[in-house]
């Protein structure tokens, strides 16, 4: 058996060759070891020092099952209407917030794109976007509350402000992925910067950017639960009250189920719309007028499709570097 691997060489020949060519040692992967050990140390140090009582940990499985039991044997469906109303309020906060973020981030995305503006402008725009990305929703919310009051509108504002950063950054990446040719063509026709952006850049990026809005809406539906932290309305507030304050577990079971179902439903619809937006119309509007000239846009998977640095927004993913 061993013979086959040396291709029928005699032992002497094999010997000879292994003296000529030194087999390398398996290299020591320092990076991997550093990461592993760091993580292990980090994990044990933090676990040992964090303020968690073992009794809590021990009670976790049993308590979890017990309260899930209270929620779902059976859930109190008479509470469903109020949960649905609260969920609609959450959707409202998420949608209006997303629209606020969309409007404000739109110009910023262009200013942050290196293929449109010079270094100083791009740098300034990126710092602004980074700021909005680094601050969590709850912080915007508690800083806005004393001014605009404890209401869903304030939550929408907080969600909107914190959407500016991500929408602007991902939008800028989409813009940086465009074809430069049409922009050059607009310049060659004597178009100014605004005109070039309007006619050569925006038509190329608008589907992806609208898809980003929808994607952000999906995220903001979840983020709108932040209202529950301060009691500003929506399904988050309802659940925090039912679970954390009045402990109506069976009613909470209904609310939680409704929240999950509607969230997933909206995800599904929004995801379909996003894919359709990016794919463009599948059916070519006009076929075969010129024999011998094959339209480019009619084959399978036709229509403009770019894998920009953000990955496929249509597939519902983005690479957040």
């Amino acid at each position: 058996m061993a013979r086959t691997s040396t291709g029928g060489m005699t032992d002497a020949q094999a010997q000879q060759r292994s003296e000529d060519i030194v087999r390398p040692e398996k290299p020591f992967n320092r990076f991997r070891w550093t990461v592993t050990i760091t993580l292990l140390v980090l994990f044990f140090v933090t676990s040992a020092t964090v303020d968690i009582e073992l009794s809590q940990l021990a009670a976790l499985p049993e308590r979890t099952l017990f309260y899930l039991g209270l929620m779902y044997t059976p859930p109190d469906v008479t509470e469903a209407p109020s949960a649905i109303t609260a969920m609609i309020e959450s959707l409202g906060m998420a949608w209006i917030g997303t629209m606020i973020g969309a409007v404000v981030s739109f110009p910023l995305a262009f200013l942050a794109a290196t293929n449109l503006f010079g270094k100083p402008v791009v740098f300034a725009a990126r710092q602004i976007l980074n700021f909005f990305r680094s601050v969590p929703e709850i912080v915007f919310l508690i800083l806005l509350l004393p001014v605009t009051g404890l209401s869903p509108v304030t939550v929408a504002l907080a969600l909107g402000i914190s959407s500016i950063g991500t929408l602007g950054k991902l939008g800028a990446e989409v813009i940086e992925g465009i074809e430069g040719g049409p922009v050059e063509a607009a310049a060659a026709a004597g178009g100014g910067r605004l005109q070039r952006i309007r006619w050569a850049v925006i038509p190329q990026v608008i589907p992806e950017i609208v898809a980003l809005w929808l994607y952000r809406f999906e995220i903001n539906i979840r983020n709108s639960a932040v209202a529950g932290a301060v009691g500003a309305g929506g399904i988050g507030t309802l659940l925090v009250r039912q679970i954390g304050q009045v402990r109506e577990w069976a009613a909470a079971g209904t609310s939680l189920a409704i929240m999950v179902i509607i969230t997933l439903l909206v995800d599904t619809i929004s995801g379909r719309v996003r894919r359709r937006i990016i794919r463009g119309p599948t059916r070519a509007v006009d076929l075969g007028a010129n024999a011998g000239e094959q339209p480019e846009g009619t084959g399978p998977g036709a229509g403009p499709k770019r894998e920009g640095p953000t990955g496929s927004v249509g597939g519902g993913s983005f690479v957040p570097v």
Partner: protein
Amino acid sequence: MITFENASVTYPGGVQALRDVSLELGDGEFVVIVGLSGAGKSTLIRAVNGLVPLTSGTCRVGDQVVDAHDKKAIRALRAEVGMIFQTHNLVKRTTVLNNVLMGRLHRTATWRTLLGAYTKGDVELAMQALERVEIVEKAYVRASNLSGGQQQRVGIARALAQEPKVVLADEPTASLDPPTSHLVMRDLKSICRDLNITMLVNLPFLDLARAYGDRIVGLRAGELVYDGPAEEADENVFRDIYGRSLTADDVLEKEGSL
């Protein structure tokens, strides 16, 4: 119409793409530039509308000096100079008409273009330009739904919508098949003749250059090595331009005329 005087271009990386080129093109002339890839053909063409600034020397269109750094003046000049690109450079996600209307950008108030509120006259001009290249029936079709040859005709219409005095074409046939290449060249030639537009065209293929050019300009490593009527551009001239004898690769149709 177009005058180069001792024009040189050195790119930031240090590549000297044009060396001391002097050249004069008359009104309504159809001039073809030939040369190896990297000879400086695109650079020469882009110098005319200031997409590439000259490092030294001057270029004039009519009696106006091309100054790429005077933004206002260069935009006005570009409005008079149409350009056709190798890769068509259409915005694929919008309609053919919107693409052609890009040719009207400089003549239209910015607020109008931003809103897309083009005047009736602009739309009429765009339609006429599309009729000229016989593709008007596609006016409201997305550009992505057109074939390569159709897209190039839209590119030509966009240049025509500018009502240009000069049209530049940078390898307009490079992404097309041979029959379509001939169609596009025929369009360009008839436009040049009918509208008395000066045309400066880069072509990679010798048979096309000889078939359609009135005059051929040869570039080699940024230097002008030939300038004369198309019919006088024989085997020896091409050896000068290409630095070697002709091979079948240098013609569009391999069994071509040369």
